[in-house]
């Protein structure tokens, strides 16, 4: 019968009688004997197979030790079929040793151990009514002895005091790190805090690996340079890096830029950004406004920059506008200028925070951001 025959909203709450089982449980099938149960020859053979596998496993362990001490690693590593002999040899011999033990044991269980199925009764998970009654009785007696029900003052203050112990546990995590506000206020290194980077007025744009400054005349139309602020490379006067350690890593992770030269006619400057480019050279933050991957895939004909992590795509000819993907904001643009020697320099820090969005970020449209300290 199907459910359609049952009136779902039957007002009497009538449940139809359960039809009898169509076929009675025939009971456990009769046990059938395996060859190893009845034939002494196959039993002995199975026994020999198991022992042989255990023996072969021992051989593999010996081989493992041999490989460990004979196959070289390091500078003059031994190769085997073009692979590292040590790793391959150790892996294969260890695997063989383990697999042989496993296979032997399972063979033993399947061929030689009893295969008579046995049956065990289940019991409901629930405790018996007597046990429940006894527990309730004991709980009541315990509660009575403690007086927790009669003395709400003690109970409530205890709950309050224990509950409040969560506060030290939470508060003690506060010193895990300085907060954004603290870092921004104390400026332990240049450009500290989410709102700023190490870029400042007049800082040279340099190439990211070698640290050489970029001359306007070096760039052809269509060229792309992965840039960094000069501050993260050793200064020329004393050869010492201006930044090192955490400060250097933080600076690098926020200040990376891409510098692109395109036909000045292609550029649609944002409101108030008319003088941020130099002869068609524009500079944008390399840090994606989605979740912060460095963006690196540039398509020169469309001036699109694609993030390899989640495929957000930005139009560098149009203020870094998002043209595709999950990013919600344009790429921050770095205002550029040229110094007396013809090198590209920054006119200021970015006028908005770089990288992924965060709650405290005060997002303004391009026209409303003003000129910063240009």
């Amino acid at each position, binding site marked *: *019968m199907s*459910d359609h025959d*049952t009136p*779902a*909203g039957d007002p009497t*709450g009538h*449940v139809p009688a359960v039809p*009898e*089982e*169509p*076929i009675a*449980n*025939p*009971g*456990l*099938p009769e046990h059938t004997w395996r060859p190893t149960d009845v034939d002494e020859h196959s039993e002995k053979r199975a026994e020999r197979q198991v022992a042989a596998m255990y023996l072969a496993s021992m051989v593999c362990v010996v081989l493992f030790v041999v490989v*460990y001490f004979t196959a070289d*690693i*390091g*500078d003059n590593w031994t190769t085997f079929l073009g692979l590292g002999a040590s790793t391959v040899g*150790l*892996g294969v011999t*260890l695997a*063989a040793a383990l*697999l042989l033990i*496993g*296979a032997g*044991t*399972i063979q*033993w269980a399947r061929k030689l151990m009893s295969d008579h*199925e*046995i*049956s065990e009764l289940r019991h*409901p*998970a629930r405790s018996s009514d007597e046990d429940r009654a006894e527990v309730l009785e004991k709980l009541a007696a315990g509660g009575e002895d403690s007086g927790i029900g009669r003395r709400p003052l003690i109970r409530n203050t205890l709950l309050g005091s224990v509950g409040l112990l969560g506060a030290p546990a939470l508060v003690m995590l506060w010193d895990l*790190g300085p*907060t954004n506000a603290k870092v921004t206020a104390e400026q332990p290194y240049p450009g500290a805090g989410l709102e700023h980077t190490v870029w400042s007025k007049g800082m040279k744009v340099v190439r990211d690996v070698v640290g050489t400054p970029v001359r306007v005349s070096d760039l052809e139309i269509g060229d792309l340079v*992965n840039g*960094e602020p000069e501050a993260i490379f050793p200064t020329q006067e004393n050869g010492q890096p201006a930044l090192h350690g*955490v400060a250097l890593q*933080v600076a690098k*992770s926020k200040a990376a830029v891409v510098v692109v030269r395109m036909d000045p006619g292609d550029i649609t400057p944002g409101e108030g950004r008319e003088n941020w480019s130099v002869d068609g050279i524009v500079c944008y933050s390399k840090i994606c406004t989605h*979740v*912060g*991957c*460095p963006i*690196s*895939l540039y398509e020169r004909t469309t001036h699109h920059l694609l993030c*390899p*992590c989640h*495929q957000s795509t930005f139009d560098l000819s149009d203020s870094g506008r*998002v043209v595709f993907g*999950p990013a*919600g904001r344009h790429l921050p643009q770095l205002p550029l200028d040229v110094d007396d020697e013809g090198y590209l320099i920054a006119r200021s820090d970015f006028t908005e925070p770089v990288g992924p*969005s*965060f*709650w*405290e970020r*005060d*997002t303004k449209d391009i026209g409303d951001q003003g000129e910063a300290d240009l």
Partner: protein
Amino acid sequence: MSIDTSKVATSNKGAATPDKPNKVGAVASWADERLGLGTAMKKQIRKVFPDHWSFMLGEVALWSFIVLLLTGVFLTLWFHPSMAEVTYDGSYSRLRGVEMSDAMASTLHISFDVRGGLLMRQMHHWAAMIFIAAMMIHLLRVYFTGAFRKPRELNWVIGSLLLLLGTLEGFTGYSLPDDLLSGTGIRAADGFMKSMPLVGTYMSFLLFGGEFPGDSIIPRLYTVHVLLIPGILLALIGAHMLLLVFHKHTQWPGPGRTEENVVGFPLMPVYMAKAGGFFFIVFGVTALMGGLLGINPIWKYGPYDPTKVTAGSQPDWYMGWPDGALRIMPGWEFHFWGHTFAFNVFLPIIVLPGLMFTILMLLPFLESWITGDKREHHLLERPRNAPTRTALMVSLMTFYGLLWAAGGNDIIAIKFGMSINAITHFMRVAVFVGPAIAFFIARRWCISLQRHDEETLLHGYETGIIMRSPEGGYSEKHLPISESRAYTLTARDRDEVYVPGEETDQNGIPTPGGRLAGLRAKLSTLWYADNIQKPTAAELEEAHHHAEHEHALQAAGEGYPADGHQFDDFGGTHETSEQPLRGGH
């Protein structure tokens, strides 16, 4: 062998009796007087476990976790969880002289200058993948067979937590080497945290010990990876196993198997040997993979540099589905009152995984609420016999699978020469439409299979023998199935639609949950709608009568196979050797 068993039994007789003490007996007695092991072992030592290949999937997860512990301890002996800048001067010449963190340098040291180090690293990574994959497949097995039903709902919740923690453990683990790929992952994770309203920036700054990247994240993740999460995992695995022992394992229905018993082989010796042997198999397979299949070659990625990224950056596969959600999410970001709410990040990466795991954990409770089924279930159900349940999971799997594919949209675009924009736009729609289609197909498929089962029960199986009647009509001969197979097919519950009580009692006072009960009844009706119930005894009887009648009608043609089938041997239904050869061949 029966003869041998009797001999063994005789020789062992009296071994444990006090008047003939031996050394083993003395040790056992010493331990028992202090630990009371006898009583504890009395019940468990011959505990019965039922046999089925699919019960092995959870074992794979368990054993791969042991492999993770063993290989992981080895790795900690050389790994330095430190972000201090060092200059690499180890054996890998291409990175010699390169500045990198100590974590990266020590990982290179393990890979190139410790014998067996690379093997252990690769085994650890492979075992992690096997651990998570096995947990997922085990979860699917438990769900599709209805093994999550009462009394095992809490073990389902524990299992779901294990999957969640295993995923986090995997993420913290592959972040530790501080190579370019893992650093990119950590940076993205920083972006995820910052997207949280109110607390995001604080979370990021506290976790990183200041501004990203800082110098604290690797040591902190290390503590989480080797102490915090493994500790919780161990405790939860212990609880998972204890509940398994307490509930006793579920079993497939069949002759002699009921809701009240468990039929199978005893723990000692059969399951000790099978499960113990299987540990060595899992360990061995992991060793083989570690030795022969390279994984996570960090020396090719190079050390982390916050200004660099590799194209085709992908997280480990089990993190792929939220990454896919992140990729196909439209760029919805809201700005108000000086605040930024990155909904485009917050929804797919923080809300969605939390929501999915919540749904996962609630599945057993949702089903029992809809069906009103509060009985204990120890017999498994075939997926086809619970069409809506099966379809629900297939639908969730489709959602997961599509998001996972979206997580590789760049790879798909490159490999198949397709437009990444088109793939992304397609996926935005597909993740909603796909699961609905999958739900419908899976449900109807299940019901068709139920119909097929009913057919087999009532009319027997299709023999493939075509009979021609004297009138010239053709029909296929059906033969009845064996009794044990017929019983197994009928050994399932009849679906009972939830019938709500009165919305008000005799005095007109609404009963608690009265209005929800109406919804429950509707959902319950939908849950079971179109399901095929097993035949009643009367229906089966009638079908057999009908079959006998058919058989009598066909008797005339019996022994005269259709042309061209004289020499077929249909399971011995007729003797081929006695067939006369036609036309003098």
